[in-house]
């Protein structure tokens, strides 16, 4: 009983942490209002609350048009990558997979490159932007290829096989992308800026672009949290308990890939989040997916807001890309996970 009471505090705790990170993210930045005026300005925007925050119109627009979209986008990207990572780990029963290691990001990059090469200026004005969709199709093909290659050589649940298949698929997608770029050097700049992402120049329209995908994908994934627990006992036993394992796996992979591809199309390549955050949450709150998935959303959002801060402060001479920050933290973390999960690789 004591244990279950303690567990019920994790979600509110993570929510509080996210709120603090959000506020912190809104208060920090080179230009803009004094930091202590920001909470007042935010309160002022609440319905039925009117506070004179003393923020000038210019400062207000720095806060609302530059900082806020960036913080919101970082939160969306962080939560989506973490949630997708945890879900992939669940359906593949493999602690080492994440959207990058499975080749999703490289496949999405290839899909996006193709759209840019064909004619970005024409497609941009389409009622539905084809860029995230192309990224989704590329990402989905890549993860399916990884799974098929991994499954072809022994059991797909053998961690090492799946990760190695992901490496191979990533290399293939990257090679094709490089080949296409060589033939179309006029779009290199555009593609390169897409790969690096535009978190630093985030606008509300970026938020609007990814939000529907993130909502649909997260909704589907969170709804599967109980079934992911059933999947933990293996395909055969889950099946004998009445779970239709293949259908669950396909649904989760499609949903996670949809979300990942959409956020990658605005944030660029941000590695290791999908492996770091779920493991951190598992370590703190246990491995049950019912707790893990909602907590991952909160902690992932918090993590990326915070990880984006160095990039915004250390802007001299050039801003540090957030992918560099997460890799800096993530690479050693990955090695620690490998060390503690050595058994899982056999």
């Amino acid at each position: 009983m004591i244990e279950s009471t303690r567990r019920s505090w994790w979600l509110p705790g993570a929510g509080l942490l996210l709120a603090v990170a959000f506020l912190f993210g809104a208060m920090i930045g080179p230009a803009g209002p004094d930091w202590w005026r920001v909470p007042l300005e935010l309160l002022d925007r609440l319905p039925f609350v009117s506070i004179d925050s003393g923020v000038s119109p210019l400062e207000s627009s720095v806060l609302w048009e530059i900082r806020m979209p960036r913080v919101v986008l970082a939160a969306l990207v962080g939560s989506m990558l973490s949630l997708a990572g945890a879900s992939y780990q669940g359906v593949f029963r493999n602690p080492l997979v994440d959207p990058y290691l499975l080749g999703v990001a490289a496949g999405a990059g290839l899909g996006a490159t193709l759209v840019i090469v064909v004619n970005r200026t024409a497609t941009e004005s389409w009622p539905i932007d084809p860029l995230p969709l192309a990224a989704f199709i590329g990402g989905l093909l890549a993860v399916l290829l990884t799974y098929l290659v991994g499954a072809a050589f022994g059991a797909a649940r053998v961690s090492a096989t799946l990760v190695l298949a992901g490496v191979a698929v990533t290399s293939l997608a990257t090679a094709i992308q490089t080949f296409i770029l060589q033939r179309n050097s006029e779009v290199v700049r555009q593609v390169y800026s897409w790969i690096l992402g535009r978190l630093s120049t985030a606008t509300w329209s970026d938020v609007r672009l990814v939000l529907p995908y993130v909502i649909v994908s997260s909704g589907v994934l969170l709804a599967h949290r109980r079934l992911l627990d059933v999947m933990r006992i293996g395909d055969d036993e889950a099946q004998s308990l009445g779970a239709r394992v293949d259908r669950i796996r396909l649904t989760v992979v499609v949903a996670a890939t949809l979300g990942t591809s959409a956020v990658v199309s605005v944030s660029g390549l941000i590695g290791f989040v999908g492996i770091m955050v779920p493991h951190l949450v598992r370590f703190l709150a246990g491995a049950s997916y019912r707790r893990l998935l909602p907590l991952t959303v909160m902690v992932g959002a918090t993590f990326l807001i915070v990880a984006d801060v160095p990039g915004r402060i250390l802007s001299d001479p050039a801003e540090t890309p957030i992918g560099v920050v997460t890799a800096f933290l993530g690479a050693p973390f990955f090695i620690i996970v490998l060390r503690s999960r050595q058994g899982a690789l056999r």
Partner: protein
Amino acid sequence: MTSLAFSSLTVSYGDSVAVDSFSDVVRPGEWLCLIGPNGAGKSSLLRSVAGLVKYQGQITVDGASLDLRSTRRRAELIAHVPQSPVLPDDMTAFEYVLLGRNPYVSYFGSETKHDRELVRQILERLDVSEFAQRRLGTLSGGERQRIVIARALAQEAPILLLDEPTSALDIGHQQQALELVDRLRREHGFTVLSAMHDLTLAGLYSDRLVLLHHGYCVSSGPADEVLRAETLSEFYGVSVTVHRDPDGTVVVVPRRSTPLA
């Protein structure tokens, strides 16, 4: 009480046939035990009932074909205790047993108060309530086996499939686990189909034995008919002495090729 019938059941993996035209009827409340050397087809037969392998022929439960049932409906009828179940180290015993309620929970739903209460009662009945909140990784072999049986009970299925339920246990825990299954089937009227290696225990607890060899049923009947020294020597290639105790217990004892001094 529920009957389970097979008519010319055949299970094959590519070219190799694991079970060949097996026909039998397990009566309601009966405990039928499959015996036979490794690779005789015992597990394949159990897995076909659990819906884990494709098969030809018919499996019927109370006269209705199993093929027509969805995965979920099948899980309401049949609980399968595998030979080496996957027990995630950091899952608690309660969470694990609760998985047994999966057939009754809708796709996106979650367990009701009734499900949790039922699991609590099952844990109490199996005398394992005290480690409900313990992680599976910290349990001993005997405790794990009882938790796996508890998960099968949570399915509330009238047919229980047990694949080598005692192979990982010491003699005391073997007896404990089989006594438990025996008690439960008397209380609930379960129909039990098991596969076992220990011939003495198989004969002691089941109502009827089926000896499989290369996928064929070569002998079927009560223990004292099936467990004969010459039969076992023919199909297992062993040299054994079979004792019959006055109370009807059949004891199979291996013999050394060089006599004891």
